C-alpha cells in the first residue's frame, strides 16, 4: 500500500473510459443536429448517428487493439517499432501538428460561441486569450492531472445535458418526429459522414496508452467511453427535432444552444438557462482542448527528448493563438473545422488500421 495512492503516473480503466468520452464530446454537439438535418431533411438522421457511432466503435476498437499490443508505449514508440524510427518520427510530428490545429479550433469555437451568447462586447481575441491561459495553466503540470480532471467534469456535463432535456420535455412534440423512413440511403450516408466527424477524438488514446497501468481491458473501456457520446448525440438529436422540428433545426446555427435558450421556468433565474448551460459546456471544451494540447506536448516531447515541457508550452501557445485567430468569419471557422475533421480521419482511422495490419502481418509486439 502506497502512502498516497494517486501519486503515480498511471491511469486505470475508469480514466480511459472518461478520457475517451470527454475527448469526443466537444464543440460538435452544438451544431450536430443541424449538420445532420441539412442532409437527411427528416428525423431519419438518427440512423446516421448510429452508423457514425458504429464506425467510431470499430475504429476505437482498432486503436485499442493497437495500443494493447504495445503496453505502456506511446504513438512514437509504437510506430517506430512497427515501421522505423524516421517514419515514426514524421508521423508523430504530423500528429502533433494535427493536435495543435485541434486545440486552435476548439478554442476558436469556445470564443465565438461564448461571444455570441454570453459576452456581447468582449472581443473574440480576449475570450480566446483567457481560455488559452486557463488551458496553459491546466497542462503546465503533469498529463495525469488533466486525465483525472475528466473524472470530475464529465458527470457534471452529462448532468446538465440531462437537466436540459428534462426542462424541454414540455416543448417536445412527438409529431415533429414524423414522417420517418423517408430519406434515401445517399442522404443518410452523407449525414453519416458528418456524424463520424463528431466522434473523432479517440485517436488520442494512442498517446495516453503510455499511462495505462493494466492495458488488458483498454478496448472494453474505450468502447464504453465512445458509447457515452453516442447515447448523448442520439438524445440531443431526438430532443432538438422534437422541440424545433426539421425546418427550424436546419435553419438554426447552434440548435443545441437554442434548446438551452428555449427553457423558460418562471422565477427569473432560469430564464437565462443558457448561461448556466454554457458555463458548464465550457468545462468539456476545456478538457478537450487541454488534452489535445497535452498530446501535442507528449508527441513533441517523444521526438525531441531534450526540450523541456515548459519551453514547448511557451513556443506553442502563441502559435496556437495565432492559428485560432486566423479564420475571419463563421464560414472560415467552418471550413477550418472541415480540414481538421478530414485530418482527424487520417489519424484516427487510416493510420491506426495500417499500423495494426502491418503489426499483425509482421508479428511485431511490444514487450509485456
Amino acid at each position, binding site marked *: 500500500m502506497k502512502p498516497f495512492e494517486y501519486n503515480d503516473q498511471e491511469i486505470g480503466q475508469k480514466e480511459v473510459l472518461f478520457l475517451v468520452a470527454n475527448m469526443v464530446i466537444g464543440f460538435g454537439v452544438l451544431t450536430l443536429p443541424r449538420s445532420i438535418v441539412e442532409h437527411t431533411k427528416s428525423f431519419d438522421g438518427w440512423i446516421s448517428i448510429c452508423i457514425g457511432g458504429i464506425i467510431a466503435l470499430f475504429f476505437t476498437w482498432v486503436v485499442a487493439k493497437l495500443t494493447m499490443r504495445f503496453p505502456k508505449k506511446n504513438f512514437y514508440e509504437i510506430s517506430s517499432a512497427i515501421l522505423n524510427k524516421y517514419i515514426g518520427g514524421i508521423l508523430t510530428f504530423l500528429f502533433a501538428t494535427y493536435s495543435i490545429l485541434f486545440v486552435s479550433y476548439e478554442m476558436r469555437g469556445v470564443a465565438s460561441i461564448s461571444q*455570441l*451568447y*454570453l*459576452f*456581447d*462586447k*468582449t472581443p473574440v481575441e*480576449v475570450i480566446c486569450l*483567457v481560455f488559452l*491561459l486557463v488551458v496553459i495553466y491546466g497542462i503546465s503540470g503533469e498529463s495525469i492531472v488533466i486525465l483525472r480532471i475528466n473524472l470530475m467534469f464529465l458527470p457534471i456535463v452529462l448532468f446538465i445535458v440531462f437537466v436540459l432535456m428534462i426542462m424541454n420535455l414540455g416543448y417536445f412534440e412527438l*409529431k415533429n418526429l*414524423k*414522417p420517418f423512413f*423517408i430519406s434515401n440511403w445517399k442522404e443518410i450516408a452523407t449525414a453519416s459522414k458528418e456524424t463520424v466527424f463528431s466522434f473523432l477524438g479517440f485517436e488520442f488514446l494512442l498517446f495516453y496508452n503510455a499511462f495505462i497501468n493494466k492495458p488488458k481491458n483498454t478496448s472494453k473501456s474505450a468502447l464504453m467511453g465512445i458509447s457515452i457520446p453516442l447515447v448523448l448525440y442520439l438524445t440531443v438529436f431526438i430532443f432538438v427535432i422534437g422541440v*424545433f*422540428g426539421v*425546418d*427550424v433545426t436546419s*435553419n438554426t446555427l447552434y440548435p443545441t444552444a*437554442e434548446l438551452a*435558450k*428555449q427553457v*423558460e421556468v418562471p422565477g427569473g433565474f432560469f*430564464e*437565462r438557462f443558457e448561461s448556466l448551460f454554457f458555463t458548464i459546456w465550457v468545462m468539456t471544451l476545456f478538457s478537450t482542448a487541454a488534452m489535445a494540447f497535452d498530446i501535442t506536448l507528449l508527441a513533441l516531447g517523444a521526438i525531441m527528448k531534450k526540450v523541456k515541457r515548459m519551453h514547448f508550452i511557451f513556443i506553442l501557445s502563441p502559435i496556437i493563438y495565432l492559428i485560432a485567430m486566423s479564420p475571419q468569419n463563421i464560414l472560415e471557422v467552418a471550413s477550418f473545422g472541415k480540414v481538421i475533421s478530414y485530418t482527424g480521419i487520417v489519424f484516427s482511422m487510416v493510420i491506426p488500421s495500417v499500423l495494426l495490419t502491418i503489426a499483425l502481418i509482421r508479428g511485431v509486439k511490444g514487450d509485456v
Partner: protein
Amino acid sequence: MYKCSKWITIFCIGFLLSGCWDQVESEERGYVIGVALDAIENQRLEDIEQVKEDSSLQNQNEGRFKATYQLVVTSALQSSGSSDGQGSGDAFLNLTSTGNTMFTITRDIAKQTSRAPYLEHIKVIIMSEELARKGYFSKLLDIFLRDHEMRRATKVLISKGEALELFQTKSKIEKLPVIYIDSISENTFKNAEMLPITTTGDVHAFLLSKKSFAIPTIFLDDQNVKVEGAAVFNSENQKMVGYLTKEETEGLNYIRGDVKGGVIEIVIDGQRMAVEIKEAKRKFHADLSNSDHVKVTVNIEAEGNVGETFEGLDLLNPKMISKIEKEVAKNIEKLAEDVITKTQEDYQADILGIGSYLHQDHYQTWNKIKKDWEQGEHIFSKSNIEVKAKVKVRNIGVNIESNK
C-alpha cells in the same frame, strides 16, 4: 527566472481580476418588455414586393415603420408598492421611433433613454394589421428570430387598429400594460375563442414550413384590451388575408386539437344551458384514393361538465344526458364546419393543419400534391372535409336542481 515569473503572475492577476468586460449593472439596464409595430402612413407603406424596385424610397430618412418599445421603470414599480408614492408615475415608459428597418429603429431608441434597451426579456410583440396585410410580418420579425439577444418564447399578436394604443392602456390589476396583455393571452385554457399562444419560435417554424398559419389577434374594445379571434396568413407570400371571428377561432381550435377548455352554449327543451368543455381531442383520417379530391374526416372527441342550467332539467336521466351530448356535438360540428368553409372558400389557406397531417402521415402522396395544395390547383379548397364530433358529459355539478 523567479523574478520573471513574479511579474508574469502580477500581470495575469491584473488582467484576470480586472472584472467582466460586458458588465452592466442590472439596475442600469432598460428592460424592454414589449414591442408594438405600426405603419407610419398609408401612402408610404407599399406592398412588400415593390420595395426593391423603387430606389427613391431608400432616400427617405423618415422611414415607413414605427416601433414602440415598452420599458419598465423599475423605480416606479417599487415605490407604488407602498402607498406613500407621491409622484404616482407610470411604471412603464413607451418609446417610439421610426425607420426603415427594425435594427435602425432599435438603435434609435437608445438615443431616447438613459438606459440602453435590453431586449432579452421581451414578452410580447404586437404588429398592426396594416403591416401584416402588406406582407411585412415575416420581414419585421426577422430581427426577433435572428438576434442572439432574442428568445424563442416571445408571444406574437396581431392588432386590429394601432398597436401602439394597446401599450397605453391602463389596467388596475397590472402596472405594466405589456404584462397585462401577456397574462390575458395565457388564458387559453379557459376560453376556446382565443387562439393558443403563438411564439416567435412557432412563427419561425411556420415561415420555414411554407404553410398557412394563424396568429391570435388583440384589439381595444372600449378601452379594454381583448385577445380574441385570429389573423390568417396565407402560405404564398405570407401576407395576412383576413380574420377569423371568435366562433371561427373556436372551431379552428377544435380542428387543430388545441382546445384546453371552453364553453359551449346550447338550447335544450327551450332552456339555455352551458356545458364546460374540459378536454377535446381530434384525429384526422384521410382518404387519398383520388389525389385530386382529397377526403378528410376530422373526428373530435370532447369531454365536459354541465356548468350551468337556467331551468330545472332532469340531469340524472340518461336520456337527458345523451340529448345534451348530441346537442353539444352538433354545436361543435357547426363551429368546425363554419371555419372549414371560410378557410377553404374565402382565404384558401390551410390553417387547419391538414397539410401538416398529410405531410407527417401520408408523406408519399403529400410529396405529389404539396405544390398544388394551397396554390395552383388548390386541392385544399376542393377537398372534402367532414367533421364528426363525439361528446361525453362526465359531471353535472354538485346539485341536481337549484330551483323548483
